[in-house]
């Protein structure tokens, strides 16, 4: 359901162009979980941005359910994201002026869901934070903040979830609990998961692992 054909991304530099991604071909099926691993600066986050329609490619194309993202305007891609896509970020990206509940309500409100508050409260309960719903992000620990972010990601009922280093800012034990939560919810909701990480342990929990190296992508065969 997600396909990338000959995908490339170049950025202008002082001494010419720099190719961040080179000729990437990829196919991810519905309900699959895929990890993209690689060192810092290998281009994995750039690829995630292109696959999620947050950025546009210099070459090639990305299709989600047959829709060519290159052919859509920014607003068209926004509509697609609102409908089909959810995100979990390394830096959580919670809005500091909003309570935990309000942060989770945000995607529901954008969809015009009349029962946004109720449903958001349900997701907070599922991530174990029912009693922290009125707390602000600064009153929550890093792990709790990421749980709020996961609740927000699933609250919009996305078909695809993109996670960018979801445990990157957390200690090992907290990171594992977050990982369990993420994969548990993913299973329950039947979501397609695309996960970017440099943590091999985390990557192994996905059905497929792809290695990003100097802008090129290789499938890692199961050993």
């Amino acid at each position, binding site marked *: 359901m997600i396909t990338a054909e000959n995908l490339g991304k170049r950025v202008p530099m002082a001494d010419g162009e720099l190719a961040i991604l080179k000729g990437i071909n990829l196919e991810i099926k519905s309900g699959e979980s895929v990890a993209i691993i690689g060192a810092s600066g290998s281009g994995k*986050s750039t690829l*995630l*941005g292109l696959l*999620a329609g*947050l*950025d546009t490619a210099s070459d090639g194309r990305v299709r989600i359910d047959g829709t060519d993202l290159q052919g859509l305007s*920014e*607003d068209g891609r*926004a*509509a*697609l*994201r*609102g*409908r089909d*896509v959810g*995100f979990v*970020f390394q*830096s959580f*990206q919670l*809005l*500091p*002026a*909003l309570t935990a509940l*309000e942060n989770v309500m*945000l*995607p529901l*409100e*954008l*969809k015009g869901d009349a029962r946004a508050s109720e449903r958001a409260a349900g997701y907070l309960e599922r991530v174990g934070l029912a009693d922290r719903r009125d707390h602000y992000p*600064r009153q929550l620990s*890093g792990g709790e903040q990421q749980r709020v972010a996961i609740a927000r990601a699933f609250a*919009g009922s996305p078909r695809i979830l993109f996670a*960018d280093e979801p445990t990157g800012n957390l200690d090992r034990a907290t990171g594992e609990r977050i990982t369990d939560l993420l994969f548990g919810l993913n299973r329950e909701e039947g979501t397609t998961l695309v996960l970017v990480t440099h943590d091999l342990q985390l990557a192994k929990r996905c059905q497929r692992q792809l290695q990003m190296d100097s802008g090129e992508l290789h499938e890692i065969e199961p050993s």
Partner: protein
Amino acid sequence: MTLLLRMLVRDWRGGELGVLLGALVLAVTMVSGISGFAAALKSALRQESHSFLAADLVVRDARPLPASWLAEAAERGLESAQTLNFTSMLYAGDEGMVLASVKAVSEAYPLRGALRLSDAPYGELREHRGAPAQGSVWLEPRLFALLDIAIGDTVGIGEAEFRVAAAIRGEPDRAGGFLGVGPRVMLNAGDIPATQVVQPGSRVSYRQLYAGDPEAAEEFRLWLEAVVEPGQRLQSVETSQPAVGRALARAERFLLLAGSLAVILASVAVGLAARRYAERHQNYVALLKSLGADSSRVKSLYAATLAISWLLSLLLGWVLAWGLQLLALQSFAEQLTVMPSLLQPRPYFIGAVTALVCVSVFAWPSLGRLTAISPLRVLRSDMPLHDTREPRDYLLGLLAMVLLMWWYSADLKLTLVVLGGLLTVTVLGGLVALFLLRGGRVLGMQAGSVWRLALASLQRHGLGNALQLVVFSVAIMLLLLLALLRTSLLEGWQQQLPEGAPNHFLLNLAPDELGAVSTLLDDQRVRREKLYPMLRGRLMAVDGEALPIEAQDDDAATQREVNFTWSAQIPDGNELLAGQWWVPGETAAVSVEVEFAERYGMSLGDQLQVRIGAAEFGVTVTSLRSLDWESFKPNFFMVFPPGLLDSYPVTYMTSFYLPPEQKPLLNDLLRAHPTATVLEVDAIMAQLRSTLSQVSSAIELVLGLVLLAGVLVLIAGVQATADSRLRESALLRALGAGQSHILGAVAIEFLTLGLMAGLLAISAAETAFWALQRFVFELPYTPTPGLWLPTLMAAALLIGGLGLWNCRRVVSVAPAEVLRDA
């Protein structure tokens, strides 16, 4: 809609909307409040001027005026009164007899202003409205001495006898034409028939006075204009503007200027607040977009935010403006016969439009462009901040500012002068910022680490600092300019009315009385001006062209009686503008006051034909002088060289200062010199002083408010870099920098900025001050070198202090908290 409301509430909670809303409220308050107050001041000014006519409108004629006009006025809801002026003999006892200037007034007189009476010739003054009771008269103090009578005695006019009820010391409509007429007697118009002195053919001046609602009065004036016949003169306020009026007019201009500056400061504050708001919302918008919000949604969200902010600012700002006007007007309450309404719509409308322009021109460009934020920011928070301004926005902002100021002050000259000052500061500020900050870095590399840190920080925020520098300079310049103007206005008023300024005029002294009068005054240590000879003459022709005896148009040059004098030297307080003062022996020459010369179309070298008594002769204009009509010193239109007027009968005049406790001296003076006339202007001067002191406190109040606006702009300017400073400081502290190290660097950075801003501001303020004094206020310009050093120091300390105070958080917040948030 719910999302929008939630967003507003959250923004408010986060403190981000507060600053923007605060700036908007400030704009509405200042603009509505100050323009409302200026309007009230204007109405006070009109009332003040009206009191010099004793009415809003006066018609006079040498024949009785139609009674139907009074009926017409009554029908239009106007009040009216009548007066008759004529000269008649006043008798007392068997021998006392004086030619007096009689004024008979109807019950309602005066319609504006008040009469000043006392119960003894120079006793304590009291204000009075209304005519003397029938059968009684009020006499000018010197008549008591001339006729040797007291209050309660009986005097006669024509066939009727009257009881003397009070001494009349002042009447509102007796400002001009006091020379050469007899002492005043005032009686009730109802007593005129009994006197039998007014007969067909008598020389009487009849007046009808009208007053009432300004609109009705204006309509009635137009009606009258259509029906008056030749010989009937219509007078309204515009024909004379007294000293108080001029002072109030200047105060009003000052207030409008202050208001215009407040508009600029508010615009800058709104612009800065919007910029900061937009910067803080970039991540928010990126997140909303990653969650599926499209650009039109983002746009409508922020448009609605601004619209609601605008409405809220109107509600709050209007209430505050109302309070501000109330506060300012309270200091005037005594002065105003009618308290002006605080709910005039125009000031509130101006405030609303100003805030709307601020929102759409200064706030929207920053917020509107948030729609262009890439959602990719959610993955890459290190993406450079979106530049929210384009040159087009700045141009549009400038244009809007100019139009607003112009509309607000209705004064293009004033607007252009302030704009010139602003542009100078902005351009110079930008250049200085670029050069100095770049040079500073080179210097800083050789300096200690605190300095290096400070200068590196100055340079790193290059563009932001240039903006900060310009904002600081503009705010300081505007405040300085306002403070300079205020000082100049107040000093001008004080100079005009210094303590001990002459407050009495002494007229009609015969040449043989001069010695005795001088001795009397000098013995009592009375400070007096020189004695000037004075004689009435008539200007007949200018440069061969005879002047008409009377003209239809009030402004047209006609033959007129003028007071002549002669003097070997140029009179005190006069300034020679053109030509030369005479050399000894020069005859047949005249020095003319410049405005009088303009009115009669005279220039240097013109031949004038003048008449004194039955003799007519020609003189050449050899010089033009300017003088201060508000100085309360003897002033003359035409001054001749000594010798030329020797053969004509002459009297002398002077002016002197008499404190209240020395008033009884006037009785002795007049008893010894019964033909002399004393004109008391101390009451008018006291009134002028009290008005000016009230205007001054009102100006101080407004200045204080504009200062507050200026400081808020400075705070907004300092805050502009607060976020990045917080992050940098956290990093530095994590690396081991001490608090004093970081605060030292911050202090140096802001002190440097303050010093530069001070330098720019004082240069531009000095220039604009010169231009405003010269072209707008028409006051002399004096450079203010003494202000430079204090300004530089104050600017450095103020900006440095504000910077430190605002950045105190950067060393108190735990570095981990900041770095984690980032």
